[in-house]
């Protein structure tokens, strides 16, 4: 499958006035293509910082980060934007859809910044919405959609650019149990059927149970890293998208 992410000795230190606050302290991590990794840990454990660095929203203070064979730890702002645009898909806890903008337009946003012709943007976004079971809802506004549907639009937005990794930061944090299951099944299906690498941040064990590998963080370090049998394998085939 090949190695997708290699992090060596990552550290991140925030400066608050004169005080130095270490958020990451020497994180070593390797993630293979096609893995479904759950990152767990209490708040303040450094998991958000790790996600920001993995998502190329931030750069480490020291250490190296190889994504898909290229060193991105020292990339400039525009370069990082380019990487986020083409290789990374984000799914956030609070969906972060642009309000009063249709589902289709939300989903086409990464292609919009890629400078694609409008027709191709539309087609790509429509296909992505179809993959998460929202075909025909393209002209709905976020306010007209349920929480679960909004999160699916967000997943479609993350998928539209065919990224190397999908980063999901507490994707079910704002959802009820049923919608949570729904979203997790979408993610699992994308991982299992389409081979998309997913890194999931959560503090709920039953959500982490969808992943095939679990990383536990504490005080800016990885304290446990273990493979696990996905508790929900097989359920994804129950399918959300009716052909």
């Amino acid at each position, binding site marked *: 499958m090949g190695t997708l992410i290699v992090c060596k000795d990552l550290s991140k230190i925030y400066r608050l006035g004169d005080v130095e606050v270490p958020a990451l302290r020497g994180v070593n991590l390797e993630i293979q293509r096609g893995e479904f990794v759950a990152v767990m840990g209490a708040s303040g454990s450094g998991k958000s910082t790790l996600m*920001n660095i993995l998502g190329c929203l931030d750069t480490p203070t020291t250490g190296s980060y190889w994504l898909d064979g290229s060193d991105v730890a020292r990339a400039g702002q525009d370069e990082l*934007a*380019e990487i986020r*645009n083409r290789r990374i898909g984000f799914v956030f806890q609070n969906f972060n859809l642009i309000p009063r903008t249709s589902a289709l337009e939300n989903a086409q946003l990464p292609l919009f910044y890629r400078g694609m012709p409008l027709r191709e943007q539309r087609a790509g976004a429509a296909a992505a919405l179809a993959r998460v079971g929202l075909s025909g809802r393209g002209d709905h506004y976020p306010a007209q959609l349920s929480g679960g549907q909004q999160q699916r639009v967000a997943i479609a937005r993350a998928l539209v650019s065919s990224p190397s990794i999908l980063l999901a930061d507490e994707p079910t944090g704002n959802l009820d149990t049923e919608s949570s299951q729904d979203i997790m099944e979408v993610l699992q299906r994308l991982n299992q059927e389409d081979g998309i690498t997913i890194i999931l941040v959560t503090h709920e064990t039953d959500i982490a149970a969808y992943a095939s590998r679990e990383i536990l963080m504490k005080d800016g370090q990885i304290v446990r890293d273990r493979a696990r049998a996905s508790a929900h394998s097989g359920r994804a085939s129950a399918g959300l998208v009716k052909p």
Partner: protein
Amino acid sequence: MNAFILLTVLTAFRILGRNRLRAGLTMLGIIIGVGAVIALVSIGHGARAAVSAQVASMGTNVIIVLPGATTVGGVRGGQGGAVTLTVSDGLDLKKKIPLLSETAWAKRDVMQIVYGNRNWNGPVNGISPGYLTIRDWSYGSGGPITQADLDSAARVALVGQTVVENLFEAGEEPVGSTIRIKNVPFRVIGVLAPKGQSAQGSDQDDIIFIPFSTAERKVLGTLFLGSVGALFATTDRPEDLPEAVEAIREALRARHRLQTDQPDDFTIRTQVDIGKVQEGTSQTLTIMMFAVASISLLVGGIGIMNILLVSVTERTREIGVRMAVGAKRRHILIQFLIEAMTLSLVGGLFGIILGILGARATTVIAGWPTIISPESILAAFFFSLAIGLFFGLYPANKASRLNPIEALRWE
């Protein structure tokens, strides 16, 4: 990039349409500023056009030579204070200065004119035929005074509109009737087309023309034959005026045998001198109104900057999302600049409409002439665009410098 710009413009219009009240209030400064500029410029243009029409109504390119300003024993006479110009001066100028396309002479006095049982006191001008050409008079009815009339000292007269109104019954045809000036009967051979007020405010239509020879022999009298009240000359092209004026000065000084240390015994005036004063006045007006308009445009620009800063704060999370999915700093910068320019441009367009309506209203209500110039509309358009760009720069830059992580966390 083109799809990006297009969609960003569309989005900007959508955002503007969503907050109509807010956008309207934001644009108010620009609307009023641009409206004021358009309206005031058109009033200014109208006024200037009216002034030049008045100046032109006296005839274009006219050079007037007035006798006078002689010094006798240290006492200087004023303009017209002495009889120093003659018919032969006029004839000689025409002969010697090829630049002059026409010369003429005239003398005038206010006299009583009688028709039937009515009378009127008006300025009676004895003229040579060229005068009518130089002053650009045309005829409501009848025809001009000719050289033949001059040669024979014919008792014929042209009357102005004001004279007609005061001597004749309404609807009565003056041409062919006989009027008496200083008890001398004159046949009316033409009525002059009205010219209205002169630039100085005098009624140009209160006038009677009779042949110069008739005037000096039978009506106005003279100290010696051939003395004139004023000489008139004209050139084909306005740019030749200064040269013609100098040529006339030299020719007259030579004819009058003036030594180099002696002052001119005549005064030369041109329409340009008269027009300049008017021009100066309207220029002052223009500068003043531009100052006023600039202030309101400045206020409008600050309004746009303010609302954009609010918008950047409100939409911090949206900016974070856009950055997360791959928007570069310049994408965010351009997006907010386009929003600023959309605001200012739409404001500018409303301002242009307001200005045109304002100019129309001024014409209808106050009766002032206004001319809406396409240049001022074009200038207003680009100026409002520039205001959007200038005042949008700070908020847009602020937006583009947001840290995506912090922006995404913004509540």
